[in-house]
């Protein structure tokens, strides 16, 4: 009995270790996920092999997210890049009761009101996709290339503030990485500190 307990503990520790040790780096295959969007549709990352995929972590109450939505910057990026065939997933990992948690209906209302046009808004209230990618902040941005490899992991741009006036003078790392990668060039800035509010995972 005691032996079983130790054995179980060992396996549990091993599991925790292997999960925490797994943190994808630039150039690694992006972890596969499956999630349901605000219209009830299921999406898998692997369905989009052959296309660039952007992941945008989102919390509509976070002042850093609001900076990019109230200015229209995020919606403009969504329109611009999806028009060029990029898949854009807005991912919401706020747990129920936490800031940014939304029901499917609330998210659809929000997207309509804000003129948001991601390919889909993925609802991740358990934080499964968020923890899989170690998403830290809102907005934390990831880009996956057409071969399914991670090519960007970091901030939306170079100015870590809540001030809308800073958007015009910041370098947008997402657009820069997409432009470079689509032109077959190496990405100048593949990582940066993903500034913003912490993702409101369940405790």
């Amino acid at each position: 009995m005691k032996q079983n307990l130790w054995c179980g503990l060992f396996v549990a520790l091993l599991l925790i270790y292997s999960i925490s040790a797994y943190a994808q780096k630039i150039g690694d295959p992006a972890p596969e996920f499956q999630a349901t969007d605000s219209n009830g549709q299921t999406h898998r990352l692997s369905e989009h092999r052959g296309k660039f995929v952007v992941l945008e972590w989102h919390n509509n109450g976070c002042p850093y997210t609001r900076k990019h939505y109230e200015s229209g910057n995020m919606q403009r990026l969504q329109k611009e890049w999806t028009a060029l065939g990029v898949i854009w997933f807005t991912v919401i990992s706020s747990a129920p009761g936490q800031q940014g948690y939304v029901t499917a209906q609330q998210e659809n209302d929000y997207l309509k009101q804000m003129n948001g046009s991601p390919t889909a808004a993925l609802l991740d209230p358990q934080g499964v996709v968020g923890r899989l990618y170690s998403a830290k902040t809102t907005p934390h941005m990831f880009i996956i290339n057409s071969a399914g490899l991670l090519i960007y992991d970091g901030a939306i741009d170079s100015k870590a503030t809540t001030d809308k006036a800073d958007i015009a003078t910041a370098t947008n790392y997402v657009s820069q990485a997409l432009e470079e990668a689509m032109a077959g060039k190496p990405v100048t800035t593949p990582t940066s500190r993903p500034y913003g509010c912490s993702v409101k995972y369940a405790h």
Partner: protein
Amino acid sequence: MNRLVWFFSVGAVGLALATLTSAHSPSDQHVKIELISEQDGIVPHGKIWVGIRFDLQDGWHTYWVNPGDSGEAPRIEWELPEGFAAGAIQWPYPERLSTPPFADFGYEHQVLLIAAVQPPPGIKDEKSQRIAARVHYLVCRDVCIPGQKQLELTLPVKSLAVAGSNVQLFEATRRRLPQPAPESWKISAASLGDEFVLNLIIGRSAGAPQFFPLEEEQIENAAPQTANTIPGGFRLHLKKSRHLMKPLSRLRGVLVVGSGKAYRVDVPVSQSSSNVHTQS
């Protein structure tokens, strides 16, 4: 008629309240921010220490120069009389604010961010001088609220200034500022696999030392920092950030030892354990 009067008075009160609250930012109820000086006046040829004091409501925090996994450090824009110059902010060592899977670096309850202000030579002692600062800051609990505050302080120019009532707070703040490492210490850093190893020949101290990196995205902030005792000190294991794209040449940060004292660390990182550089 009565109802109409009532309607208008409620409207007027509502309007007045709205005007009143719009003059304050929503973060005001969670933090009080003041500009204070250590001395009661400016002495010609002498510098004066001023500080921005944050008094935070319980449960709320603001951030260190490297905020860690989320958040943002306060920014101060000085507005000084002509010829005056402000030095860099002196950041007291932070607390590790842990909310797994994240760790931020910041301050709870109270913090004073101090800077030295140097008046120009030949300043006359009849006029008062206005020192002002615009502070941009973020306060967080489970949610975050950004704020901006315009602060000012008017000080007379005198031939002799005396310490004011704030002197103890300035002194307490200085005790939390990172000091140069003692000459007898030997600190070295090596890159080993997915870790940086800090060899700290610093003698024994109660409790394990903690390292706070000055630069972002060098180590995984939330990873436990394991300290093993070695002859003459400790070996501290720091997990490399997954965002680190090329070998790091120097590790810069603040080491807080058991006694609650902080020291500056700025050492080259050797790429193997056999060839270890030291800071002496």
